[in-house]
């Protein structure tokens, strides 16, 4: 009997994926939406436990490799889990599970039971494929799961109540398909040069081809393709509409995970597969990425200030925040990378919380325009309270998670003696104060419109996840061992690999 636990531990990487991926077809077979929701919730929380177990195993700098099908890499497909993988896994599963818990109430008003179980199926598929992308150590395998996640995301967005959700999803579909095709071309080119698809093997075999034009083209295609998926400025075109029109709590999940996992893929490929020297030295990625991400931060923050729909405002803020992560990566020093990885986690947490709190308000008001939300601080004090904490976190006030990542980013810029960049970052934070402040001002100090004067507090199943997000934001603002501590080790690893 004592062998079973140790065997289970060995199989954890596969279990991590299978929990959600197998729950999906099972969910699709039930017509009873509540039952499917129970299965989906149990599966996603079990997968959180699994992610914690994996994180525990690699904590401190370990790494696990698991051979799918029992074939050694590069012949078979390998699953690799290191600290960076584990933190992204935790991000996807934990925030996914929290949103899943709140999803039932949120959907109950817009969908019938039968549809609901299909919707949970899609949600689980999306989560499973993001896990698949994260854990794989094989370049082509990334693409396979990327396809699942893209298809699932388009479906999730298109099910919005509004017809405009369809155009938003279609636009995302076109952009996403172009992105995926470009990534496919890039991987095909790499395979042509090296004859392997395994990431570790690729990174060993690519350096001798650094002068090869095929590799240059491959790198260009990859960068543009993944930047489309990350929604990096100026390729963010699809994001605001997709977030605005996607239904209810789903936005929280998408905002937290989809772009973050793409960003993870970008970091993996650029640092581990192509190599830092090639990407930033030879191909000059930095000279492209730094100005673009700064422009992205400023333009998107400014656009956010002038929105009068709360969802759209937060979506624009996401574009800006992705700029922070891209900048952190492009700074190419320990502090910068630490901030990129930390902010990936922190921003996922805060944005998911904000969108979820917003979904709770919309559950009562049926509208996300700022006019409908005015005065909501008095009618729904708890929801608005969570929203306020998360918003303050997003600005980056000390003792919240947002402060930690911005602190590292500014120190990263100062390490490089880029004083103007640091100043621009602080200006962008002022803009964040402007747009978050605008929302809080409306919520607390404007009188509520008559029709919403006596709405009740949100349902508990949505309120509790909101508050978990809010409390985590404060917790990770004080205890940074899990986020910045781990990110620091990851950063020195990534830079040291070059």
């Amino acid at each position, binding site marked *: 009997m004592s062998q079973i636990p140790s*065997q289970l531990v060995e*199989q954890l990487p*596969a279990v991590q994926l*299978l929990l959600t*991926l*197998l729950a*999906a*077809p*099972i969910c*699709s077979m039930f*017509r009873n939406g509540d039952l499917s929701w129970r299965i989906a919730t149990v599966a996603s929380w079990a997968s959180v436990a699994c992610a914690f177990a994996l994180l525990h195993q690699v904590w401190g700098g370990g790494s696990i490799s*698991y051979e*799918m*099908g*029992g*074939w050694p890499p*590069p*012949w*078979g*497909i390998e699953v690799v889990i290191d600290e960076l993988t584990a933190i992204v896994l935790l991000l996807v599963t934990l925030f996914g599970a929290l949103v899943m818990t709140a999803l039932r109430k949120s959907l109950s008003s817009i969908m*019938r039971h*039968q*549809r609901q179980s*299909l*919707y949970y199926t*899609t949600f689980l*598929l999306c989560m*499973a*494929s993001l896990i*698949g992308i994260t854990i794989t150590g*094989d370049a*082509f*395998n990334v693409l*396979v*799961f990327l*396809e*699942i996640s893209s*298809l*699932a995301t*388009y*479906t999730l967005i*298109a*099910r919005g109540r509004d017809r405009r959700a369809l155009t938003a999803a279609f636009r995302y579909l076109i952009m996403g398909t172009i992105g995926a095709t470009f990534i496919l*071309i890039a991987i095909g*080119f790499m*395979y*042509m*040069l*090296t*004859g*392997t698809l395994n990431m570790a093997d690729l990174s060993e*075999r690519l350096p001798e081809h650094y002068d*090869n*034009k*095929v590799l*240059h*083209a*491959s790198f*260009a*295609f990859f960068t543009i393709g993944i930047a489309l998926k990350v929604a990096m400025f100026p390729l963010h075109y699809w994001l605001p509409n997709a977030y605005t029109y996607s239904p209810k709590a789903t936005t929280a999940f998408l905002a937290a995970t989809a772009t973050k996992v793409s960003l993870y893929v970008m970091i993996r490929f650029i640092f581990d597969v192509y190599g830092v020297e090639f990407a930033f030295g030879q191909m000059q990625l930095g000279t492209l990425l730094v100005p673009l991400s700064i422009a992205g931060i400023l333009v998107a923050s400014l656009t956010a200030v002038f929105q009068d729909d709360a969802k759209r405002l937060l979506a624009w803020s996401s574009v800006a925040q992705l700029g922070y992560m891209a900048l952190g990566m492009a700074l190419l020093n320990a502090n910068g990378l630490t901030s990129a990885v930390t902010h990936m986690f922190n921003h996922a947490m805060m944005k998911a919380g904000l969108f979820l709190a917003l979904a709770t308000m919309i559950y009562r008001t049926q509208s996300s325009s700022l006019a409908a939300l005015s005065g909501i601080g008095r009618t729904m004090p708890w929801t608005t309270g969570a929203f306020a904490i998360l918003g303050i976190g997003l600005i980056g006030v000390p003792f919240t998670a947002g402060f930690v990542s911005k602190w590292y980013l500014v120190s990263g810029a100062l390490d490089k003696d880029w004083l103007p960049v640091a100043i621009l970052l602080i200006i962008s934070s002022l803009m964040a104060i402007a747009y978050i402040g605008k929302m809080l001002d409306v919520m607390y100090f404007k009188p509520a419109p008559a029709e919403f004067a006596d709405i009740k507090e949100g349902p508990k199943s949505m309120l509790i996840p909101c508050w978990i997000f809010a409390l985590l934001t404060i917790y990770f603002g004080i205890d940074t061992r899990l986020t910045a501590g781990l990110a620091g080790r990851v950063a020195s690893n990534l830079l040291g690999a070059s």
Partner: protein
Amino acid sequence: MLVATVFAIVKLDHLMTAVMLMGFFSLLSSCIFMILDAVDVAFTEAAVGAGASTIFILAALAIVGRTSKKKRREKTIVPLIIVTCTGAMLLYATLDMPYFGTPDAPVHTHVAPRYLLESGEEVGPPNIVTSVLASYRGYDTFGEAGVVFTAFIGVMILLGAGTRKSGLEREAPPNVKVESMRQKIVLREVADLLIAPVLVFALYVQWHGDFGPGGGFQAGVIFASAIILYALIYGIVPAQKILPPRKLAYFPGIGLLLYALVGVVAMFKGGNFLAYGALMADPHDGQHYGILAIELGIGITVAAVMINIFFSLSERSL
């Protein structure tokens, strides 16, 4: 010819013709795959591209109408620049590519030798494509089955599964046209002649994937196209009498679960996920039955997805 076809498709206003040409395009590309010796791919492209997807688009056209509206001209300069850059990038890359068919290109010297030389020993099937697809990279194929399943769920959600009555439950429309395709004697005879052999051929492709080109994906599509042909000729209602859509909707999930189950059983027997060798005492037998089982899973998923999508599209135009 490919290029000419594409230009024709873009320029045409008449959607029906454009769809026909797209089918032609797929047939052409499957010929190219054939010449490149990728028989399995050619197979799939012919069945999916030229067959099933053309019918799906036609079914969609039946709902939305067959001509496109004239649109105002939009700015075309930015897309033109992007397309030119992409093309230039691709051409730039070809400068350093290994020549076509060079035996010492890296593709042929790194992982391929083991696939070619040892797969017979390690995995078993004489068709190397099958052993790479189903065993060495079985995890990828599992993902692909997941892609098909996801597409199915997406279509079901968006087309409103479960909210409409299927053809069976619906009352026959009063002014139904007596003149259906059933009355066209040539069509009916040809279809009668074809459907049974096509079904048998699908089963052959399914079980013979070990030895020749074929496998679950191809067999599923071929099987589905036979059913779709039946539905086209005899009408959707008789087809749904044979395969009730409510039950059919379970099968994509069942296929995927079957695939995963093989992997999970292997895990309980002490191997890794999808390590078929662990399934039985003799690893060869394990590989053999494992591959057969997962191919069956794929076949079920693909066929059920295709038929389901066809049914739900044509239900809307009823």
